């Protein structure tokens, strides 16, 4: 008891030291807090760049944008700029679809040159229905309005429902399959 009392008296006399120490403690606590804040900020930054949901969301939007553009390209063709149009078809596609286009290019070009048609397309709406980021595959559905103008007669306007499969390549998402949504096969 007695000893303890003397120590309290001693610290009591060193009043200045007594006030300095809490300050030091506060300063240390502040530094620790700051270090904590830096660490937390770093963690947030790390987590953000490794956020699967964010990269998935970005991939979905990229796939949709590429898909809509590709579908529009594939439904746009002017007989006066045939080579350019067919080039854009080939650039928009990959895999089987690309091969089919390359193989059938000459015959198709001849057909269009004879028919002298101009097709333009407008994407009305589109959605990604599935996305497998690891496999680099996405499914899209696109509602499209296609206008075909022949040398004679009124332009024909047709709305079409398309289902496409996209594959990720080094040059971005490209169509690997494209077809009309089947009619009369409800529940797909």
């Amino acid at each position, binding site marked *: 008891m007695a000893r303890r009392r003397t120590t309290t008296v001693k610290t009591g006399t060193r009043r200045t030291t007594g006030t300095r120490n809490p300050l030091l403690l506060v300063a240390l606590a502040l530094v620790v807090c700051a270090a904590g804040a830096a660490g937390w900020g770093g963690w947030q930054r790390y987590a953000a760049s490794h956020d699967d*949901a964010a990269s998935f969301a970005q991939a979905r939007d990229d796939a949709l944008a590429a898909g809509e553009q590709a579908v529009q390209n594939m439904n746009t063709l002017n007989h006066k700029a045939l080579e350019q149009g067919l080039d854009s078809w080939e650039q928009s596609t990959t895999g089987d679809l690309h091969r089919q286009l390359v193989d059938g290019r000459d015959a198709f070009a001849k057909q269009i040159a004879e028919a002298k048609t101009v097709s333009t397309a407008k994407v009305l709406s589109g959605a990604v229905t599935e996305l497998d980021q690891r496999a680099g595959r996405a499914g899209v559905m696109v*509602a499209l309005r296609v206008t075909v103008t022949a040398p004679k007669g009124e332009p024909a306007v047709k709305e079409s*429902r398309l289902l496409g499969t996209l594959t990720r390549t080094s040059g971005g998402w490209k169509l690997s399959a494209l077809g009309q949504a089947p*009619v*009369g*096969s*409800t529940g797909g």
Partner: protein
Amino acid sequence: MNSDVAPDPDLGPGAEETGTRAPDPHDGADVVRRRWPRVLGALLTVALLATGGALYAEGRQLRDTSATANRALTDAEATTRVTGDVSSALSKIFSYGPGATATTRAAAKEVLAGKALQQYAALFGQVERQSADQKLTLTTGVVRAGVTRLTDDSAHLLVFLDQVHERRGRAPTTASAQLTVVAELRDGRWWIVEIGST
């Protein structure tokens, strides 16, 4: 705590006394020596805080984009749910048999709200009259539905539909259609609030 304080008593009071009473030639150097850890500490604190803040801001920027605000597919469960709810709702409200339009009309009140309810009422008035006259049966099925935009309580969808018309005594015909639908989550259920042809 005590071990930190313990060595001090011998040194502390003496240094303190000289500091408060009479400036000493050694005191200037002493003050500098005592101050630089404080300055360093302050600088360190500021630098750490700034780093933390900058990293956090950068992280936020990476994470809060227009892409992440849209939870279509990223929230698989909600996406499946709204797609299912809207698909079954559309099948129900666009299917009817002769003389059974009242059932369809009642079903519509359970899945439609707001603008969609008015749009539907206008459309269905005609259908009801025709259906009675022509003995028409309409069966609607969803071919494919996709979510274009999804947030906590609202969703935009694109839906491909097939509609089979059957007139008594004739072969059925199938028509394809596509709709854009806006749905809202109210009381834990998705309601269709707007229907548009694309």
